């Protein structure tokens, strides 16, 4: 039998691609021999742009790096600036930041559920997930004024206090979503077809995951309970009780189940924060934004975004603009080395399955 190797472009304009990313595959029959990830379709040079603008003018830029979950990028920039300038955030602002981060995590997981269910063919569950995400965006619109890009956090706290009646609306939304979890389970997560399509696909062992730099769900699905919210707590996470879900196998089935359990834990965290919300001010005044200079130094801050460890390395040389900022994004290691390793030996039909279960967002790779 004579076979021949062909080069196949799983390119940017493709029905199975979510986001602007391309993979070059070398195929022999139906099995993939080698895969090369090809990022760069969304590169804007953020880190160079931020060196031209002052510390306060930069507030609008970081949230556009991750379009699916912009609040985590805002939070990491604020934490970097507050750590260098030694600003203390008041307690009520910490609780409000936790609520905003957890709502954003819910929206991001529902977007991931839409992408995965749509790719597998479970269209009903995809429409439900997208509709619930829209209710979260309605809550954000009432709080901040914008559906997708909020610019709600600023160095020293949050921009304004919660409007009247906001807490009841959030509790109503969570109770409605919790009432529909059995429907989601029956339609997608406990479905026999999902088990057959996802079990054993894209399997990675714990040793390989640590060597190739995995964090987040990819690591927790191999059995390691590592969550930055427990290890090095930030915002109000040391005052709420929650668990870190893990699974054992490390394949696409386990990763989706970890996402399902994390959504339930997010709902618990939001309810506890709303019940224990303290009173006080929400904003600590910063100096004149036109003349604000941050003392010389460097720092590294990290949070647990919905995809893994998100960090920022900020260097200041005492001026009005940042000297160098580097964002350590989780999609960089999930999207290039781990994807290329997992695609070797897989079928062409499973490329979308593996890519979306690894939870890669292309703008985070390119920045």
């Amino acid at each position, binding site marked *: 039998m004579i076979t021949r190797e062909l080069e196949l472009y799983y390119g*940017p*304009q493709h029905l199975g691609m979510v*986001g602007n990313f391309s993979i070059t595959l070398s195929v022999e029959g139906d099995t993939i021999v080698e895969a090369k990830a090809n990022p760069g379709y*969304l590169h*804007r040079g953020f880190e160079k742009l931020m060196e031209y603008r002052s510390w306060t003018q930069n507030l609008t830029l970081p949230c556009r790096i991750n379009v699916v979950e912009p609040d985590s990028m805002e939070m990491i920039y604020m934490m970097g600036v507050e750590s260098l300038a030694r600003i203390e955030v008041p307690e009520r602002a910490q609780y409000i930041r936790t609520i905003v981060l957890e709502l954003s995590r819910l929206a991001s997981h529902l977007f991931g559920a*839409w992408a995965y269910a749509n790719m597998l063919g479970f269209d009903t569950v995809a*429409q439900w997930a997208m509709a619930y995400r*829209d209710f979260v965006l309605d809550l954000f619109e009432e709080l901040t004024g914008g559906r*997708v890009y909020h610019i709600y956090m600023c160095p020293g706290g949050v921009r304004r206090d919660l409007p009247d009646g906001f807490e009841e609306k959030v509790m109503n939304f969570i109770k409605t979503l919790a009432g529909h979890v059995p429907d989601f389970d029956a339609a997608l997560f406990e479905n026999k077809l999902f088990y057959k399509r996802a079990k054993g696909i894209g399997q990675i062992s714990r040793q390989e995951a640590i060597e190739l730099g995995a964090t987040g769900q990819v690591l927790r699905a191999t059995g390691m309970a590592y969550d930055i919210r427990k290890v090095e707590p930030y915002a109000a996470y040391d005052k709420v009780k929650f668990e870190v879900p893990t699974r054992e196998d490390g394949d696409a089935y386990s990763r989706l189940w970890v996402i399902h359990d994390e959504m339930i834990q997010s709902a618990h965290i939001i309810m506890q924060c709303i019940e224990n919300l303290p009173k006080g001010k929400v904003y600590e005044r910063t100096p004149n934004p036109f003349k604000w200079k941050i003392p010389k130094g460097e720092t590294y801050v990290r949070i647990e975004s919905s995809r893994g460890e998100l960090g920022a390395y900020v260097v200041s040389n005492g001026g009005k603009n940042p000297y160098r900022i580097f964002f350590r994004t989780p999609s960089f290691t999930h999207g290039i080395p781990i994807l290329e390793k997992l695609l070797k030996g897989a079928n062409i039909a499973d490329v979308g399955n593996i890519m979306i279960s690894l939870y890669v967002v292309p703008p985070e790779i390119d920045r």
Partner: protein
Amino acid sequence: MDRGQLSKWFKHPGIMAQKYSLWAVYFCTGCGIIEVPPSITSRWDAERFGVMPAPSPRHANLFMITGYVATKTLKAIIRTYELMPEPKYTVAFGSCPINGGMYWDSYNTIKHIDKYIPIDGWIAGCMPRPEAIFIGVTKLWMMIDKGAATGYKRYRENYEYYRKNQEKLFGKLPWPPLFPIEDKNEKLTV
């Protein structure tokens, strides 16, 4: 049903059928793609306007440029645009395709996309809401009725200008020109 439309269906059936079924190419070019999945799912249903994502550019007649364009994406956009059959319409989202937007000093983004492919309409917002996208689609219908959505005719008539701009940016392009460019230096000798 609007009885004033019945006569239009008899006089120009082609235009009416075309504008009420605009199929959009499924290409996520930039930031603005985050508001397109809400538009095509059940809450803001785009299919009641006739807009649905088409699997291949050969089946599509609407191209949505959602947000900023990086230079590497522009090559893919030009190839996809030239693959679409005529008549075709392009719509640009946000302020980044108009004049660069907030990335005006970036070395890798395109500042005026109208210099490389023709655009029929722009929608404001960062990102435009699903309601803004639908208002843009209805304005495109009115333009098609009047015959003012002529981006593809502009591309055909001024192809030499567009191709020269694309070559100034990228160097020699690896695909041949879509329409034949006449060489003005050639003299016909009899």
